[in-house]
């Protein structure tokens, strides 16, 4: 079955081609069949490949399928090859399954939208490029998928192109991710010139052999790759684009900006973990970026009124957790959190989509309320996902994955007390804004009357995801709860084990207990603030300090304003003043000088005879004088 590996990315690609060329002519039903159908087929193939991978694991724990040589230029010969190992297998399964559910959901969500076939074409292209990214055996092929995914996010964010605001948001997303991509390409150059190959596996071996730990080159390469990852996964310096990316249709946000694309950065760092192991500084940078981002995004998420923006900030925060896990060396924990996060975040977005659709495209949470009774299914699934995000102990998957990361943040080699504290405080923030969202939308007195009930195509995927959000956690349980390490054992082959550091001040149980405490505290605060006495909110945000802080957090810690001032304005200013291309004026100046000379010379021809005679005489005088002077 492994031979069919190439089929997995090929199917969505074929879907894209058919929809792109013949889409407008096909009926809506046909498009609805092709779009999700292709992704379903790809999911089925990937599950069967997974089965054969489990049953008969290929030698060395990885399977390489070589298609053709991309280019062969004097020593640089990247191949178009697909590489399957536990890491890419898990990612692939998540992407295809969650992808299919979202496709199925959007058949109804986008039902009355006129760009129906175009939407599914882009979604299929996205799944295809994401799979190429995951399965790419060569960093260049990974880069191809990387940019393809960026392109699709641009196309899908700007899907409703009639509104220029969407266009601007889409372009902003593409510029910022492209900044990350440039950093990453520089990293690729560095890696190739130093280590002579871009084949990931050989690269890892070469990096391990040639670079001793702490070598400056490895740090540089690591930081450049981190730059690329930050761009794509909207981490600290480059996270401004994700909140604006909510301008796209909700299924897009669910698929791209929650489950799959934003975690591409996590995948990249996990895939090139050897480089980060070799240079501790780069690894620490990853952890630092992760910790800082999760706090900042956590605070900002609390102040958002738009339900999707709040979810976007929560995504940034959760990915911050994954980066933190990667930073401290808990590779499998990060991937585990990725899996659980994909389930409940996609579910949250889909739920939000239903809610928005129900309240006649109303995005503001404050205008919704009391939807508990009208949308029961949505409420329950949304609540499950919310609890999983916040980390409801013992029952939800989120608790396990986040707990593991928080524990590793303290216990593992790169971990420290500061990181642990940041992680715990982040957990508190997470539960606050999650329950704030749930209470605002579903509890309290109903402000908006429900316009549209979700149909079957929306409810079933949501329910499936809810099931996964709850169950997925039991694959990896902490020591005192059954000590199941199914997931990390499986990942063992691809990623190194998180090593405990000695002299731990705290046991895993203690850390889990603190996390539970944080969850409960968050729940209480949210309940107290947003359900019991809504008036209390004004009391916090009214005083000038509160207002300033609120505005500061709301605008993503002023990042937007800063980047706008730093990059966008000067460019526009230069474009405005230099439209006429000042180099051109040099040549225009040359033309002007010649014209001026012409005018001067013309005036010498007065037409009067005597003037000419005088000039002749002057000439003779001059020549005679010259002759005299020259005569020795």
């Amino acid at each position, binding site marked *: 079955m492994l031979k069919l590996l190439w089929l997995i990315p090929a199917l969505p690609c074929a879907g894209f081609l058919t929809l792109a060329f013949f889409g407008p002519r096909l009926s809506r039903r046909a498009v609805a069949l092709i779009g999700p159908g292709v992704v379903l087929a790809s999911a089925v193939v990937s599950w069967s490949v997974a089965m054969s991978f489990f049953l008969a694991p290929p030698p060395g724990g990885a399977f390489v399928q070589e298609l053709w040589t991309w280019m062969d230029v004097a020593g640089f010969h990247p191949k178009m090859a697909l590489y399957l190992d536990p890491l890419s297998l898990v990612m692939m399964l998540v992407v295809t399954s969650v992808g299919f559910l979202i496709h199925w959901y959007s058949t109804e969500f986008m039902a009355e939208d006129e760009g129906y076939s175009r939407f599914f074409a882009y979604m299929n292209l996205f799944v295809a490029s994401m799979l190429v990214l995951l399965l790419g055996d060569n960093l260049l092929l990974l880069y191809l998928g990387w940019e393809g995914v960026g392109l699709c996010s641009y196309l899908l964010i700007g899907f409703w192109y009639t509104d220029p605001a969407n266009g601007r948001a889409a372009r902003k997303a593409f510029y910022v991710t492209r900044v990350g991509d440039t950093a990453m390409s520089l990293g690729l150059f560095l890696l190739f010139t130093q280590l002579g190959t871009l084949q990931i596996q050989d690269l890892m071996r070469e990096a391990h052999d040639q670079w001793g730990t702490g070598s400056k080159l490895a740090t540089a390469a690591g930081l450049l790759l981190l730059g690329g990852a930050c761009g794509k996964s909207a981490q600290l310096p480059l996270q401004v684009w994700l909140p604006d990316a909510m301008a796209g249709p909700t299924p897009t946000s669910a698929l791209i900006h929650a489950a799959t694309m934003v975690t591409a950065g996590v995948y990249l760092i996990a895939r090139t973990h050897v480089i980060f192991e070799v240079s501790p500084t780069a690894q620490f940078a990853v952890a630092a970026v992760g910790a800082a981002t999760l706090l900042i995004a956590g605070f900002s998420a609390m102040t958002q009124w738009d339900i999707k923006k709040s979810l976007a900030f929560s995504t940034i925060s959760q990915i911050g957790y994954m980066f933190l896990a990667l930073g401290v060396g808990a590779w499998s924990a990060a991937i585990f959190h990725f899996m659980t996060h994909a389930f409940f975040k996609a579910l949250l977005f889909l739920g939000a989509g239903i809610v928005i659709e129900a309240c006649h495209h109303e995005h503001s949470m404050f205008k919704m309320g009391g939807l508990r009774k009208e949308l029961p299914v949505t409420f329950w699934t949304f609540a499950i996902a919310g609890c999983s995000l916040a980390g409801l102990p013992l029952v939800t998957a989120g608790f396990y994955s986040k707990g593991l990361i928080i524990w590793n943040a303290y216990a593992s080699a790169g971990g420290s007390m500061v990181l642990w504290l940041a992680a715990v405080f982040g957990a508190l923030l997470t539960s606050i804004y999650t329950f704030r969202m749930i209470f605002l939308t579903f509890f309290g007195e109903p402000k908006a009357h429900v316009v549209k009930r979700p149909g079957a195509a929306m409810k079933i995927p949501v329910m499936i995801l809810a099931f996964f959000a709850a169950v997925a956690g039991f694959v990896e349980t902490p020591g005192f709860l059954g000590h199941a390490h199914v997931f990390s054992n499986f990942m063992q082959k691809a990623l190194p084990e998180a090593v405990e550091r000695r002299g731990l001040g705290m046991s895993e149980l203690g850390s889990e207990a603190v996390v539970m405490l944080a969850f409960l505290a968050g729940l209480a605060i949210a309940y107290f603030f947003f359900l019991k006495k809504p008036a209390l909110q004004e009391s916090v945000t009214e005083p000038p300090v509160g207002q300033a802080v609120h505005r500061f957090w709301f605008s993503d810690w002023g990042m937007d304003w800063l980047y706008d001032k730093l990059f966008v304005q000067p460019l526009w200013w230069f474009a405005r003043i230099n439209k006429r291309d000042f180099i051109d004026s040099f040549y225009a100046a040359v033309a002007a000088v010649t014209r001026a000379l012409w005018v001067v010379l*013309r*005036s010498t*021809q*007065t*037409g*009067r*005879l*005597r003037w000419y005679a005088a000039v002749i*005489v002057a000439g003779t005088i001059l020549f005679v004088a010259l002759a005299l002077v020259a005569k020795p």
Partner: protein
Amino acid sequence: MIGLLVRRNLLFILMSLEVMVNAAGLAFVVAGAGHGQADGQAMFIFILAIAAAEVAVGLALVLLLYHRYRTLDVDVASQLRG
């Protein structure tokens, strides 16, 4: 030569021109005499021929000019300006 430059009347210009040509002829003859060869005078004859031709054409032009502009002021005829 001063006349050539100063006078505005075309006739006077021509006359001063004649004087200049004559002076050249004088120079030639004197030089010829000085060296004792006849070349100077031969040259003088050529100069005479030139002067004659020049005067003939010059005066014809003067007449035409007068016909056209009714005056002999040389600055009037400056259409060839600029």
